[in-house]
């Protein structure tokens, strides 16, 4: 037992004798103030991002959307949202009026303060109503009944606020209003929509385009 204990003590002593010296710290670790003088690569003016729109009112319907891709260019005078791609869906009292929206937009803004920018919004919107079937007709010709879908430009304007989160990341809040222009009577080839739902066929108000008000929160990096 004594011999085992002695061997263990000798082993520990040997380890301490031959142990590598603790690594000395670098000069920038010893004097952290020096780090601020070293060159840091400036962040690019281009940002990618994504976000959600927790509050969107689309005519008389509530809409939830997420923007899955954003490319922005931020420079001292401009906040240019070059492209923003978003998916959304509405919730409506009437099932046939629920819709899905795929919007591609651009939102260039000028900075009125370091924090706030304002500008117009333009884009293209693809909308579909999965619960509402329709055919398109042209004289004696007609297409099979399919869920109604349409496309139209959107235009409007809004305000943004950008908050720096540090390490090159930004938080952007958008408040925007835009008008939808998708057609519900005829498509772009001048074929007429005929809806299977008689109520909608007689009164298209639940599916008509209108104004959209949205608040969007995005993370840019």
């Amino acid at each position, binding site marked *: 037992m004594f011999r085992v204990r002695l061997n263990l003590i000798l082993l520990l002593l040997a380890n301490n004798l031959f142990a590598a010296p603790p690594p*000395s710290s*670098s*000069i*920038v670790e010893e*004097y952290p*103030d*020096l780090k*601020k*003088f*070293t*060159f840091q*690569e400036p962040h690019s003016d281009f940002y990618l991002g994504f976000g959600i729109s927790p509050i969107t009112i689309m005519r008389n319907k509530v809409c939830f959307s997420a923007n899955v891709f954003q490319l922005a260019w931020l420079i001292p005078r401009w906040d240019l949202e070059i492209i923003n791609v978003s998916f959304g869906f509405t919730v409506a009292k009437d099932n046939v009026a629920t819709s899905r929206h795929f919007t591609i937009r651009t939102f260039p803004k000028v900075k009125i303060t370091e924090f706030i920018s304002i500008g117009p919004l333009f884009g293209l919107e693809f909308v579909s109503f999965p619960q509402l079937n329709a055919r398109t007709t042209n004289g004696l010709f007609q297409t099979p009944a399919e869920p109604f879908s349409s496309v139209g430009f959107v235009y409007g304007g809004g305000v943004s606020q950008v908050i720096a989160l540090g390490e090159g990341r930004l938080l952007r809040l958008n408040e925007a209003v835009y008008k939808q222009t998708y057609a519900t009577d005829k498509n772009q080839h001048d074929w007429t929509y005929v809806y299977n739902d008689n109520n909608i066929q007689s009164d298209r108000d639940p599916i008509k385009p209108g104004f959209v008000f949205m608040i969007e929160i995005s993370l840019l990096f």
Partner: protein
Amino acid sequence: MKTLFSILVLLAPIANATPMWRGTIPGFAQDPNRWALLLQKLEEKQMPHGALAAASRMLTLFTDLPTKELAYQTVIKLIDLGYPFPIRSVFAAGDIEPQSDKEFADSYYFYKATLAKEKGMERWAEHYFSFVDKENFPKYLFYSALDAYSKKDFSASEKLLKKILSLQLERSQLGLIKKVARTLARIYYELEQHEKSLDIYESFLLKLNPVTPSDWLETAWNRYHLRRFDRALGALYNLESVVPSDSVSLEKYLVRALIHQELCATNDMEALLGTFEKDFGKTLSAIKSGESLSHLESLTTLAHPANVDFHHIRTSVLALQEEQRGGFEFSPELRNLAEYLYRTELAALNNRIGFYRETALARAADQLIHFSESLRFLKFDVAREKYNPEVVFQRKDRVLSSLVRELPDERFQIRWLQQGDFWRDERPDYIGVVNNKCSG
């Protein structure tokens, strides 16, 4: 009576003396406020050499205290920004007594004191140093550290330098901070603590923008002593950047030669000697054949410790010409003044450089000749080594042609031809391709 008559006879020529030449200051250059505005504009437009010339001129032309104070503040600012040559001499005629701005006062009296000490005026130096905060003023601490370093008291010097680095330092003091870090690195180099010295270069000095070219050379020396020859060659490669440098150091050839000699790399040594011949062959032939040195442009760029004044004037001339070429985007009255300043300053400097040129070129020629002789002896070693049977029958190196080379521990290295100038984030990581060809 006779004495009085003798004195009058002696003084007569002085009384009748007329000036040999007279300088005329144009009317637009006689307003100190205009000079102050010009100084401000030159600083805004980042024309430091013009600003220094303007400050020096203001000290010559005007005697009012506000103008002098502004001029000295500008000179101190330029020194703090890292002006690469000593310009303390402008403080010789300084007769202001700054009180309100403590930082300015400390710097002003410090430079007055160091200038007095340089000239051997110990009591004046002591008098001016009494106005300086010796405990906390970084420039004084650095001065004391350099004094200890020159006396080989490295531990005292190290302590003072570390005290400076632990102070709250501002960006405006970056010029001083670089010198402090570099001196600390050189102390560790002298003490053969190459890891610690190398760390200062790798973690700080080589991460500044811009990097002082000599830091690459000193990094290479540390890596050479640590036997990291590939990284040493990589550091030296940075000195081949296409960005023009004010001066050329022959040490890079020396470090390369030592590395190749260590590794018995005969082919690389021959290539190095070929490069040296390409760079300086014509100059050496011209020197040996007794041609006039003033035509040899490469001699003017060779760094030599005794040629500081010559290089200072030469750099100032080139820099002022560069600033002048950029044009003066000032109001018409300031533009007149700026053109006058640059024209007269360049004329004065071109005149002054003539006093230094011959001696400086002779020193540079001497240095080049001696260095080429040292390399010639290495050439004999190479020639002998080349016919060593162990080298002749050595397996030829496999020429690396692939883009990617795999390294141990799942790392890899990418190789490509360097076109144009170097990328900033790559510069610390260059590696020279070296193989140890020594037998045994």
